[in-house]
């Protein structure tokens, strides 16, 4: 099945070359970071996590969202998702790979990564996060390749895959819940220490993941003969609508708790994000863009005629992904560090090196996704020709 990855047109190879160029630039940037240390990033003693961990948090959500197609198809026999499931699973593989790479480039001593496996620490949520992420990667790789290979051969998949598929459903929820627990268990960070963080993560994940899946399906429909079907795309759009609405509701709930009670500790970060604090307001334009984007996208998504039109749907999907990216990445991760535990404000701006490395990690993930999609498209075309 892997040999299908080598059969592609000019556009396919050009795309791979494009990813390779971005990876090359990032590799140079990363070698600079390895040599000089993480000082080349915009992180500081006060804001000790930044762009890398923000991407990790966002992408864990995308990875978890595969469950939104797996659950209806395998648990409820929703046949319309027949062609979409493999896309969801391969998107999850690509996303988890990127997650792991973002953790790796964020580490001060990446060569010591095996210490996490050599010295397991059950009280540390980060230990569990690495275990469940790794497990999820293997799970989706195995399920994806086994089921798709079986389809290629025209036979039902092996029986032992079924329990793995059922396992992947709670596992998907768990990877993002555990990631939320990374943040929600810290007494030092009142902005993060809220029970609703895990539900918020899941709601935003189930908005951004399926939105990405919609984009992927639309792109494949445009550039190849692979079409997941209009019903599948429409169902995904409905999922994004509900998830985004629930996400918005959760944000409102959080705002009420913070603003009505008026407790300084709970308010300070909100004030920094939406109005500025102590003269620092770098994130304010981003957060208001996010607010407007979220409201606009939720409203548009509720109109069936918007969802029915490819161009509009694609635009709204981009908007949803952008909104969640801002909210989870900058809003949540950076916001948690401002103000610091001593009540001081140190702002964070990513550096060019940091951005180059980030883009390169995305390029690796998208390269893997491109190859996997190539395989899916080729095999499907062979099946349909037969």
């Amino acid at each position, binding site marked *: 099945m892997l*040999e299908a990855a080598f*059969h592609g047109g000019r556009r396919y190879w050009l795309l791979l070359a494009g990813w390779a160029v971005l990876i090359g630039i990032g590799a140079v940037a990363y070698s600079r970071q390895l040599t*000089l*240390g*993480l*000082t080349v990033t915009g*992180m*500081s*003693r*006060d804001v*000790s*996590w930044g762009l890398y961990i923000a991407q990790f948090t966002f992408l864990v959500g995308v990875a978890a969202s595969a469950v939104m197609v797996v659950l209806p198809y395998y648990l409820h026999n929703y046949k319309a998702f027949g062609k979409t499931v493999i896309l969801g699973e391969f998107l999850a593989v690509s996303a988890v790979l990127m997650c792991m790479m973002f*953790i790796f480039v*964020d*580490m*001060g*001593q*990446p060569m*010591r*990564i095996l*210490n*996490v*496996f*050599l*010295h*397991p*620490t*059950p*009280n*540390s*949520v*980060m*230990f569990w996060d*690495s*275990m469940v992420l*790794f*497990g999820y990667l*293997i799970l989706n790789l195995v399920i994806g390749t086994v089921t798709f290979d079986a389809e290629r051969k025209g036979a039902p998949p092996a029986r032992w895959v079924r329990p793995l598929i059922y396992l992947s459903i709670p596992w998907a929820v768990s990877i993002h819940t555990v990631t939320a627990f*990374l943040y929600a*268990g*810290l*007494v*030092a*960070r009142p902005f993060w220490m809220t029970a609703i963080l895990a539900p918020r993560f899941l709601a935003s994940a189930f908005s951004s993941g399926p939105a990405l899946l919609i984009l992927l399906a639309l792109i494949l429909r445009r550039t190849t003969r692979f079409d997941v079907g209009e019903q599948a795309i429409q169902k995904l759009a409905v999922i994004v609508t509900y998830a985004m609405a629930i996400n918005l509701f959760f944000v409102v709930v959080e705002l009420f708790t913070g603003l009505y009670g008026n407790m300084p*500790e709970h308010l300070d970060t909100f004030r920094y994000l939406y109005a500025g604090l102590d003269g620092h307001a770098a994130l304010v334009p981003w957060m208001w863009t996010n607010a407007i984007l979220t409201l606009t996208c939720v409203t548009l998504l509720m109109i069936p005629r918007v969802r029915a039109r490819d161009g509009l749907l694609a635009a709204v999907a981009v908007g949803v992904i952008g909104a969640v990216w801002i909210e989870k990445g900058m809003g949540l991760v950076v916001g*948690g*560090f401002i103000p*610091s*535990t*001593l*009540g*001081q404000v*140190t702002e964070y701006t990513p550096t060019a090196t940091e951005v180059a490395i980030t883009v390169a990690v995305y390029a690796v993930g998208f390269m893997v996704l491109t190859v996997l999609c190539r395989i899916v498209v080729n095999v499907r075309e062979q099946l349909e020709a037969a």
Partner: protein
Amino acid sequence: MSNHKESDGNTSRRRFLKEAGAAVVGLSWGLPVLSAGCRAAAQESSAKVPGKQWAMVVDMEKCRREGVRQAAIEACDRAHNIPHIPDSDDEVKWVWTTEFQHAFPEDVHERTPAAQREAPVLVMCNHCTDPACVKVCPTKATWKRESDGIVMIDMHRCIGCRYCMAACPYGARSFNWRDPRPYVETDANGDYYSDYPTRARGVVEKCDFCAERLRDGQLPACVEAVAKVAGGAGALTFGDVTDADSAVSRLLRERETIVRRPELGTGPNVYYIV
């Protein structure tokens, strides 16, 4: 492409890959989880011998003197080869001065006068009884020593994930964003002031209650230094808080003391005389 040898070469190579993959997954996922489970089970049965708990009492009034605080900070910096990095984003500090309102945010109100609000306070790692940093470290590179309660860091195991820095409510931990060695103060001969090992970039560090000095029967560098400056006698008191006769225990009984952020439940062991 469709008539390659599906029957011989591919299936055995496939089987090898599958079995190798399964072995890798099984070992790398199964071993840590299994050993973590065994360790957790074993901990129930081991008897805990109560050790001491080193604690510090800071006399805030005496530490208002600049000279006293400077002596403490300089002694610490020199005893541990702590780098002086000009960019505050990358700074490394084990003991430093902050304002009262930053150290004790719950103890100021709208009408607290500026002199009180901005009064200088010496802060450092609190070597908490239930440290948040130890709870989150994924490799146990930081741990609380059972014998004396010091929260230690193994600089060789630390992977530099900085989760502990996110978890510490007191901002006590510093990360080596760059190689610290060029920024460590040297004496007239160009030697480091102390034999304490310098760190590499990419690891986290913090006050260790001078564990290496305690081992030799000495007091922490800051405690010893403040006693030598004017007005510094008794500014910092160090001792075993589980020993009812120690100097720190007596001070805690006789004087009014507070700790930083008690509502968080971390149980800090640095006490401040108001």
